[in-house]
């Protein structure tokens, strides 16, 4: 048992470190280190512009999408090399936020299901940060039950005509391409009538509208499709095979092992170490101490769970299912921590201003943003189902709509 790199890993790390050292935008380091929760905001720059510049530099230095094959813009790196790269890229990895959906989900789907022409045309530009991709899966009435989606695709000559609405699309307003799943046959059971496409987001009939969220911010979009034409050559997989294609995308979503999720624990520890209560420092209070300790061991448990997964990668093994717990644990913890930090602030906890008394409103912001952590990318309930079914081997839910044609499934509760 040790935390050392193998000689090859150490050599790779050294190369990566030197490159980052020589090329990263050092002037942004302090600002990037501070923003640990939610979307990155930079005082003087637009994240997309700075991100594109960093991605381009990485691409030229052969560090972009490095686990992809070389012919599609990657480096052909091993999974463990990808993890080491992420560790060395450090806070500058936050600049790649606009490309994460493309790199993590859309790219791998095109790679698995696209034609050779499509792969050569789109993947290198995605890797270079020249073209940004978004994912168009969720709909207002199809969230966890994404196979229940309604957006229609109808064949007309060599084209498909799209009508419908998608929601929760991160980055749709600055994306060049979108990965779209739509219903091509409503007369068969829901999973069987879906087909996957990709489209130019500038196509006529595509309208992107920002959503004002519960926390007052606008980070996601609704995307409306009115008679949008997509050539049949932009179909991924066979007609009716869309569900299988979507699984490639979603599987990749859950493979992000190197990614460190925010837990709120370091912020809370610092807060309690400095907060004066009536009887002394908060951290000296046994009740505070007990809560802090429980959160600290969850946070360290997640860290060492990811180390176990990295160790498996290092040995060339597939990591076990342990890593599926990360978002489930950290999402709930963020919400609990925010609530308790405000409780310790007493009456002033209600204030959302950025003054000293409420530590710049960081926990108030955490409270208002944390519900999304428990929903986006799989709700807590879906994640528990996944653990129960795929890890523990418990039976799947009884699905009353399984063998029913899609257009016969009830659409209203009452």
């Amino acid at each position, binding site marked *: 048992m040790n*935390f050392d790199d193998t000689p090859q890993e150490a050599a790779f790390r050294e190369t990566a470190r030197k490159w980052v050292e020589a090329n990263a935008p050092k002037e942004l380091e302090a600002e990037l280190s501070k923003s640990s929760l939610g979307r990155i905001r930079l005082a003087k720059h637009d994240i997309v512009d700075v991100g594109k510049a960093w991605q381009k530099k990485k691409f030229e230095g052969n560090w972009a999408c490095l686990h992809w094959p070389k012919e599609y813009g990657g480096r052909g790196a091993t999974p463990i090399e990808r993890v080491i790269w992420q560790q060395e890229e450090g806070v500058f990895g936050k600049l790649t936020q606009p490309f994460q959906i493309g790199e993590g989900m859309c790219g791998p789907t095109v790679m698995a299901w696209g034609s050779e022409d499509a792969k050569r045309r789109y993947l290198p530009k995605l890797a270079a940060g020249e073209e940004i991709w978004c994912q168009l899966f969720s709909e207002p009435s199809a969230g966890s039950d994404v196979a229940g989606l309604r957006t229609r695709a109808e064949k007309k000559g060599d084209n498909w005509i799209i009508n419908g609405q998608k929601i929760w699309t991160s980055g749709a307003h600055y994306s060049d391409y979108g990965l779209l799943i739509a219903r091509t046959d409503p007369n068969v059971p829901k999973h069987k009538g879906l087909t996957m496409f990709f489209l130019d987001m500038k196509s006529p009939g595509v309208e992107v509208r920002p959503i004002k969220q519960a926390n007052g911010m606008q980070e996601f979009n609704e995307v409306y499709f009115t008679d949008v034409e997509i050539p049949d050559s932009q179909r991924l997989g066979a007609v009716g095979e869309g569900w299988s294609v979507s699984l490639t995308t979603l599987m990749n979503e859950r493979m992000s092992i190197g990614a460190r999720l925010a837990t709120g624990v370091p912020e809370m520890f610092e807060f309690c170490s400095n907060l004066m209560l009536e009887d002394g420092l908060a951290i000296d209070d046994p009740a505070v101490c007990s809560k802090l300790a429980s959160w*600290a*061991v969850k946070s*360290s448990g997640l860290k060492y769970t990811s180390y176990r997964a990295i*160790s498996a990668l290092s040995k060339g093994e597939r990591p076990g299912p342990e890593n599926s*717990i990360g978002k489930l644990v950290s999402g709930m913890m963020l919400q609990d921590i925010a609530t308790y930090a405000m409780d310790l602030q007493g009456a002033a906890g209600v204030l959302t201003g950025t003054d000293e008394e409420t530590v710049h409103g960081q926990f108030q912001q955490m409270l208002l943003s944390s519900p999304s952590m428990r929903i986006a990318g799989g709700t807590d*309930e879906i994640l528990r189902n996944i653990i129960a079914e795929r890890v523990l081997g418990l039976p799947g839910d009884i699905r009353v709509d399984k063998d029913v044609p899609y257009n016969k499934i009830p659409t209203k509760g009452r």
Partner: protein
Amino acid sequence: MNFDFSDDQKQLRDQARKFLAEKCSPKAVRVVLDGKAPYDSELWKGLAEMGFLGVAIPEEFGGAGAGHLELCVIAEEMGRANAPVPFSSTVYLAAEALLIAGSDAQKKEWLPAIASGEAIGTLALFEGKGNPSPKNIKLTASNGVLNGVKKPVADGAIANFAVVAARTGSSGRDSDVSLFLVDLKAGGVEMRGLTNLDPTRGQAEITFKDCKAEPLGAAGEGWSILTQVLDRAAVLCAFEQVGGADRALEMGRDYALDRIAFGRQIGSFQAVKHMLADMYVSATLARSNSYYGAWALSTNAAELPEAAAAARISATQAFQHCAKNNIQVHGGMGFTWEFDCHMYYRRANAMALGLGSLSYWEDQLIDRMRKKNAA
């Protein structure tokens, strides 16, 4: 990075699991549970023959000379099997205290006897209510003679010797505490078994009356040695707890697959699935924290105090959580004496107190994290 046990260590784990599945069935555990024997002496002999009792004891003192990582994998299996033997008191507490502070003669006297299964040892620390603290030690030692009462002492009624924490000063500092080694079969000692939550691991009261004892470690060093012993034991116990948590989770999962209600497997109801998924989450976090503790223990790293506290807290919570919800998954059957669920529930809650309670270790963890941050 290789944050995992080696193939040899995993093989040892498999070997221990197979051995315990054969020699330590729930039926065998019940002999002790029902009070028909104070511990499973046949199993104890078997563990000695397998070399498990002395796995971390150096060869020169009759052990296998392997190491603490090997002891961790065996501990996990002991917890999984709910083994009714004085393993933790003898191996994690008494043997570790001797390894840390014993003189060559003391090691020669007791360590080979532990490895061979001839001697059961324990740590006599607590005196009634309260957590580990120099203030709570009232038993006195003067001129090598002990007077006072210790309780609860784990496996105290069946032990051959004890490491005893005694007060040797009154300055109000940690240096008021010294450790002594007592042969419990000699005079001046009265041992009385006490009823407790987990009858598969005995608890006792030991009265020392003008009892002759030899010092273990230097005078005034007792508290510092004890702190090290408790940290080591915290990691080793965490592995037992992780083993117990995993077994409780498995029992719950198996029952959810077998039991039919409302015309379907109860494991198909989300209320049950989600309860089991949460048990998996706790058990996984505990395992990962315990691995870190194992690394710190095996390398004697500066991180050991913090790592031990984190492993202790995480594993205590996980075992309690899994044992409690295993009963819930079983419903009424889980509340019968006949089903094994209560054995893990008892063990989980007894272990949560044995080295000091959860709140004590939470306090320790935060204290140690602060010291690290300040440094």
